[in-house]
């Protein structure tokens, strides 16, 4: 099947699904899932193919160009993997509406078009399809999310206008928008042009990836939107990683900025970008630790992980690039799995506030297992896939000798133990609330995609060489240096990482532990409320669940810190006040006011024209 035909069909499917959903929602959702799975399968099996196609001439010489290169293939298959798994997950969600399936379908086709694009124009057109449909989607069934959508609109408008400006600038100066041609023309362009274009694209990347300083939309739009959105967003924001990879590796930013001074072998522009990533890691981590609602918490963890991706890709180098690309995969898998398990919890209990939940492990064990594996990966602990990417990023930081950026990376990594553990305690462990006594496990159709994502996380954790082999193809396509691999080992600057050995040793340790455990006397099973209480009598499980403000001491350290969101909020108040002042001038309540204003105008006009 032709690529453009596939994307066209995917776009056409959206209204068809809408009308179908008006008759039968279930059928439309099942059909949507089938379409997404077949799209994923189609893209996934195009691994070896390398062809391009262009359609729909917009104006002289400008067409939509799609194609398969290892880069497009990598990003498109990650995004479509998450989207297809989500589409299966959605079949049994509540609140299905025809509009939602229309928007979801548009988002998916936008994402495919954007990641398979071969030039900046196609990228932005399809990306905006995704953005605008997700904008409507966030505000769709909750009133309070309207304000959050405004934040999203304004931030993504900043990014989009920056990118459109860069696009027309490129078109006017170079006469082409194709990635590779732009790359070769940019090499010989004037220095100002290089900086301008890189900065404009950088703004777009930071805005859409949700990285510092354009991260303020992430918390609100994840927490107030329908539960479907954050799951998808973990994939959709990766389009920004695709653009980032294009501007730092395909248009090799290190070579176009070679005339600028460099710090530790990293050109200063890349270094500054890496620092924005580093700040995003710290800000995201600190804020995530302080949140009390799961979706907000994971939203800030997404900011932190977006920071990792920016830092790694901006640093460049073999390990940085490969680590960053692998982190795209790991974070997409882990955050989708986390949001799915939280959506499953919300589906059964109706809340995602941690202090309103607790003890659900006995009621929802599979959701718990999904969450556990995902957080182990997110925290970068072996033997899950998250370790390999963080390990590679550290290798690059050590190689370049950048202790301050390494500080940011370690802060995010160790801080992540804190914030991933809080929902684990709050939602799944601790005391079961009496009103959740009869909660059941999520339906099978929800557990299926969760299980698949979990297995993939474990698979790429035990055999990261498999994922890195794909990335190596991508790296050699862009002319970078490949990393050395064997079946179980990855070789890097400071040594080797033998994932199979470590996993085996861990299981040997586990078996030893199990033998010791079995040899001991059988334990007496007691209730969760039957604990050491210092001699007091406690009967209320709700009060006996410690999670609200779990890290109060950490909070105290950071509560005096400046908050960008508060600053922007007070700025918006100031602007509103200014508007109110102007309104009193130009829209007075009494006719005298109008006369005064018109006299004043006449006087000024007379004086000025005199």
């Amino acid at each position, binding site marked *: 099947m032709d690529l453009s035909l596939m994307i066209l069909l995917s776009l056409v499917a959206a209204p068809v699904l809408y009308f179908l959903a008006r008759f039968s929602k279930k059928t439309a959702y099942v059909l949507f899932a089938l379409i997404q799975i077949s799209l994923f399968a189609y893209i996934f099996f195009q691994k070896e193919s390398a062809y391009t196609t262009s359609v729909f001439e917009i104006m002289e010489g400008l067409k939509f160009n799609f194609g398969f290169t290892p880069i497009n293939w990598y990003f498109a298959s990650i995004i479509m993997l998450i989207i297809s798994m989500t589409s299966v997950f959605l079949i049994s969600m509540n609140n299905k509406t025809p509009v939602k399936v229309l928007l979801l379908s548009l988002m998916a086709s936008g994402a495919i078009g954007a990641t398979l694009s071969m030039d900046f124009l196609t990228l932005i057109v399809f990306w905006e399809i995704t953005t605008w449909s997700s904008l409507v989607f966030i505000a769709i069934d909750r009133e309070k999310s309207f304000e959050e959508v405004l934040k999203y609109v304004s931030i993504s408008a900043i990014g989009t206008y920056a990118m459109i400006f860069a696009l027309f600038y490129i078109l006017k100066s170079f006469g082409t928008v194709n990635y590779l041609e732009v790359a070769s023309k940019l090499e010989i362009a004037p220095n100002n042009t290089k900086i301008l274009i890189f900065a404009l694209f950088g703004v777009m990347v930071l805005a859409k990836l949700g990285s510092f300083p354009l991260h303020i939309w992430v918390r609100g739009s994840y927490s107030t939107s329908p539960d479907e959105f954050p799951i998808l967003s973990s994939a959709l924001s990766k389009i920004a990683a695709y653009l980032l990879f294009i501007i730092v590796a395909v248009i090799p930013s290190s070579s176009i900025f070679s005339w600028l001074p460099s710090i530790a072998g990293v050109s200063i522009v890349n270094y500054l970008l890496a620092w924005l990533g580093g700040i995003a890691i710290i800000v995201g981590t600190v804020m995530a630790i302080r949140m009390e609602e799961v979706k907000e918490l994971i939203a800030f963890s997404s900011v932190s992980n977006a920071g990792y991706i920016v830092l790694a890709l901006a640093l460049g180098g073999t390990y940085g690039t490969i680590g960053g690309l692998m982190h795209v995969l790991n974070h997409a898998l882990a955050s989708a799995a986390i949001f799915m398990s939280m959506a499953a919890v919300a589906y059964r209990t109706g809340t995602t506030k941690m202090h309103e939940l607790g003890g659900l*492990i*006995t009621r929802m064990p599979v959701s718990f297992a999904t969450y*556990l594996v995902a957080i*182990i990966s997110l*925290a*970068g*602990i*072996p033997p899950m896939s998250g*370790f390999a990417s963080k390990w590679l990023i*550290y290798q690059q*930081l*050590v*190689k370049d*000798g950048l*202790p*301050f950026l*390494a*500080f940011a990376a370690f802060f995010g990594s*160790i801080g992540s*133990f*804190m914030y991933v*553990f809080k929902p684990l*305690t709050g939602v799944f*462990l*601790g*005391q079961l609330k009496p009103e959740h006594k009869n909660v059941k496990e999520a339906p099978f159709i929800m557990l299926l995609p969760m299980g698949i994502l979990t297995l993939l996380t474990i698979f790429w954790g035990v055999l990261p060489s498999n994922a890195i082999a794909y990335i190596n193809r991508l790296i050699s396509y862009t002319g970078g240096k490949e990393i050395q691999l064997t079946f179980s080992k990855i070789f890097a600057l*400071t*040594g*080797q*990482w*033998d994932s199979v050995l*470590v996993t085996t040793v*861990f299981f040997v*340790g*586990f*078996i*030893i*532990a*199990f033998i*010791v*455990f079995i040899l*001991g*006397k059988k*334990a*007496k*099973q007691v209730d*969760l*409320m*039957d*604990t*050491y209480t*210092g001699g007091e009598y406690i009967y209320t499980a709700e009060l*006996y*669940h*410690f999670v609200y403000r*779990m*890290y109060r*001491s*950490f909070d105290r*350290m950071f509560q005096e810190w400046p908050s960008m969101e508060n600053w922007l909020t007070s700025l918006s108040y100031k602007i509103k006040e200014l508007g109110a002042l102007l309104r009193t001038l130009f829209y007075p309540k009494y006719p005298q006011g109008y006369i005064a204003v018109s006299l004043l105008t006449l006087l000024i006009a007379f004086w000025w024209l005199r």
Partner: protein
Amino acid sequence: MSILKGAALLILAFFYTVTLEGIARKITARIQRRYGPPFWQNFIDIFKALTKHSISHGFIFDFGVLMAFGGTIATVLFIPAGNLVVFPGLDNVFVVIYLLAIGLLGMAMSSVGSGNPNAGIGIGRALTQMLGYELPFMIVLVGVFFQYKNSSLSDLVNIQIESGQYNAWLMPLGAVVAFISLLGMLGKKPFDVFIAPAEIASGPLVEYSGKYLGMLLIQHSFAVFIEIGLFVNLFLGGGRTIWEFLVKFFAVFFLAVIISSIMPRFRVEQAVKFYWKWPLILSFVQTIIVIVSAGR
């Protein structure tokens, strides 16, 4: 062969660390002008705990203990003890640190899974304090790895032995910072707020009894072996023989114990603020000195 070596290392780690912990009780007692228990008291405690009846709070309570014990045993195997090296070249420091984390995660999960809020408070404090002590330690490690372009423990030991220059002499500030971080890792005073027996009833350990407590006591001994072993190998050049390693190990352990026995206890945010002040600044200074003097 590596199976035999692994078994030998585990047995060594168990007997040596448990003995040392017994001696530590004696040392503390003598500093406080008490007589103190015999040095084999900890063996008695562990054996007794393992053979007693116990209670369980459900699946995750059991599973977490297994994960903690298994993860820590796995980590011990990556610590070279003198010439007893189980996986030469594969004992990457990052692997050791993160593999140790899986044991800690298991323990945290299990104790919070007991439903006792004291355990939750203890784990919250432990994780917060971890953010304090790990950061300076990791920054120092960046310097060490940059210097040698290697992060394998056994290779680092060989390099130090061959050149005759221990990292503690080459990077004195780094060694001091790493030792202060080590006190936090070991949960020695003044950084023992997460187990504070009088405040939160031993925190994470509050619900354990019988074989669970016994396993966690062994797990704690292994964790001590890993943490001090890491310091000895990284900064004191490990050892040519097992004996040399064990002597250095004892010296570090002894120093930690006597410091611990005369210290009061930090509140958790005081501990974190402390780590983020002098140790962190010193670690940056040390790492920058290393990076600049290595001449890139």
